[in-house]
């Protein structure tokens, strides 16, 4: 009997990194380099499988996987009218997020092999990194709300442990404590909302709930709980304050993985608005709500980044600002759902999810490189590094131009979609977004000047370029940024449009499950 890899691929996408996580401490006993290679191979294999699954989905449509059924596609047992098993449902939007998460996890693993040469406890670090990857993938693949909660908790707990990796630093422990408190609070309210929906409709499957939902009073309460909790996990202002603490104190490879986890929470917000409540929600109200929150997030993130003295906290606040751009794109798509520019806004918002992870990820990796080389975190004590860290300087320059939305980088491609569509809804939205981008450019030019330009400082005369593994990780992100910037149409047509189409058509998502085997 042949084993059809593609039909089992949704489960394998979880199983491979999960078993990798459990085997990592065992492999560590052999040699550190064997362990490092094992982790990279596991993530790379998972990514290759995800690429094959993506091709299958773009060709054949939604792929579903039912755990415990005699066939992976048997969504409803013969005698029961609603899906009762745990079902993974992978559409264009899910696989888009999966590809992003795996790319970032791979880059984080490669970067870690060079960054952490001097630390202890790396077997636990890589185990947790793989578990974080499992959590993110589970959140993005699952079509079951309680299963989503489980993976949310896996993500939160592994992230907390990773943030606290530098246990000798009080700031890291404090950041981890704050993160777990916030995450637990969010997860608690998500669980409460799931309980309300289950109590109403006797179903946990997202497609079944979306088909049954009537937007009663209880449903509205559940919507508020879900939106508030997941918006906090996504770092939307004014619930963003945990984000600079967590991003700023974690090791840089952990930070980029947590950025990907944050985007997974943002994916959940989109799934709730477009799919779960898509048929009943007042699109205009929710859309304008998201636009308001998005503008606040952009403004607060960008203005607070300007006054930071720590390198990583500055980039973290900029990351908060960038989340706002995604939200205003999606909010415009909801608020103007009948207009032609709504699809442009949605594509811009979704495209910006991908671009933002790459840009902010590259900047965090460069920050990590600077900390590795100089053992300094404060902008007060750094300067003149361009002489000794040429490659790092170039990577920072690429990240700077990308995050500020300068052509021809990838950031510009997604931001122009957002600017032009939001302008048609209301010019003020676009004006605030553009001015904030200019401020972002100013912030990162300041950091560039502070870190790399100016005279060589006496305490930094012995600084050398970082090891090759870190340079390779940064170059992967830089190359992808440049390629996307030069060929944005290709990526929009092949990655972003299927994701936007999947979100805009909740009926396909519902019929894939309720249409039978």
């Amino acid at each position, binding site marked *: 009997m042949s084993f059809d890899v593609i039909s089992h691929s949704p489960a394998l996408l979880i199983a491979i990194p999960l078993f990798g996580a459990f085997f990592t401490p065992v492999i560590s006993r052999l040699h550190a380099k064997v362990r490092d290679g094992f982790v990279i191979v596991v993530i790379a294999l998972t990514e290759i499988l995800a690429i094959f699954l993506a091709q299958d989905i773009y060709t054949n449509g939604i792929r579903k996987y039912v755990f415990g059924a005699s066939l992976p596609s048997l969504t409803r047992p013969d005698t029961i009218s609603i899906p009762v098993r745990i079902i993974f449902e992978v559409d264009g939007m899910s696989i888009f997020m999966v590809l992003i998460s795996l790319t970032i996890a791979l880059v984080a693993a490669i970067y870690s092999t060079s960054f952490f040469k001097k630390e202890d406890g790396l077997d636990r670090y890589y185990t947790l990194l793989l578990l974080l990857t499992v959590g993110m993938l589970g959140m993005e693949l699952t079509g079951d709300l309680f299963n989503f909660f489980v993976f949310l908790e896996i993500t939160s707990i592994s992230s907390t442990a990773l943030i606290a990796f530098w246990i000798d630093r009080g700031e890291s422990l404090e950041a981890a404590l*704050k993160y777990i*408190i916030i995450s637990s609070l969010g997860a608690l309210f998500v669980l409460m909302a799931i309980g309300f929906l289950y109590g109403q409709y006797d179903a946990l499957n997202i497609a079944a709930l979306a088909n049954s939902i009537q937007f009663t009073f209880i449903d509205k309460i559940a919507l508020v709980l879900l939106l508030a909790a997941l918006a906090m996990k996504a770092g939307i202002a004014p619930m963003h304050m945990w984000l600079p603490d967590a991003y700023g104190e974690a090791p840089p490879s952990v930070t980029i993985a947590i950025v990907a986890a944050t985007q997974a929470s943002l994916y959940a917000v989109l799934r709730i608005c477009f799919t779960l409540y898509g048929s009943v929600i007042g699109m205009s109200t929710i859309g304008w709500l998201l636009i308001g929150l998005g503008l606040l997030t952009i403004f607060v993130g960008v203005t607070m980044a300007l006054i930071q003295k720590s390198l990583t906290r500055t980039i973290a606040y900029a990351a908060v600002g960038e989340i706002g751009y995604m939200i205003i794109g999606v909010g415009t798509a909801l608020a103007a759902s009948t207009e032609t520019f709504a699809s442009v806004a949605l594509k811009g918002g979704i495209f910006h999810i991908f671009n933002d992870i790459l840009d902010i990820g590259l900047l965090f990796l460069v920050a990590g490189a600077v900390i590795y080389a100089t053992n300094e975190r404060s*902008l*007060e004590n750094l300067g003149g590094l361009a002489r000794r860290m040429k490659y790092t300087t170039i990577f920072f320059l690429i990240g700077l131009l990308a995050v500020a939305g300068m052509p021809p980088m990838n950031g510009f491609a997604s931001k122009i979609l957002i600017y032009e*569509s939001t302008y048609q809804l209301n010019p003020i939205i676009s004006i605030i977004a553009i001015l904030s981008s200019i401020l972002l450019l100013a912030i990162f030019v300041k950091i560039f000047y*502070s870190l790399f330009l100016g005279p060589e*400082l006496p305490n930094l005369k012995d600084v050398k370029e970082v090891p090759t593994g870190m340079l390779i990780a940064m170059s992967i992100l830089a190359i992808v940024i440049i390629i996307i910037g030069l060929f944005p149409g*290709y990526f929009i047509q092949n990655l972003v449009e299927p994701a936007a189409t999947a979100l805009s058509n909740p009926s396909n998502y519902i019929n894939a499950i309720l249409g039978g085997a």
Partner: protein
Amino acid sequence: MNPFTPITTGSGFWNPLIWIIAFITALLLVYAIRLFGNKQYKKGSSQTKPFLSGNVAENNEQLHVKGVNVYWGFTEAFKGYYDKMKRIHTGDTRDYVLWFLIVMIGLFFIVLGVL
């Protein structure tokens, strides 16, 4: 598919190929202008030394404007706003939870009241 397919935004389009052509043209113009420059200079003489307001810049490290002091004018002009924002960003987890509750209550009013 043509990899240089432009993105259409509904009210315009973006094609990186056109930008690259324009950028290369600009670089060539810059190079042409540079060729008209003076090639004669003595390295290590006062022609290559940095000056600050007409004075020779000694002790470079002490003259380095630190990153935290850049944009002082901007932050000073917005002192009122930044004082409020610094007070809001306390770093206390209880305040983070409070903001979450405030947003949730706000969402309750909007969703239950309007939708």
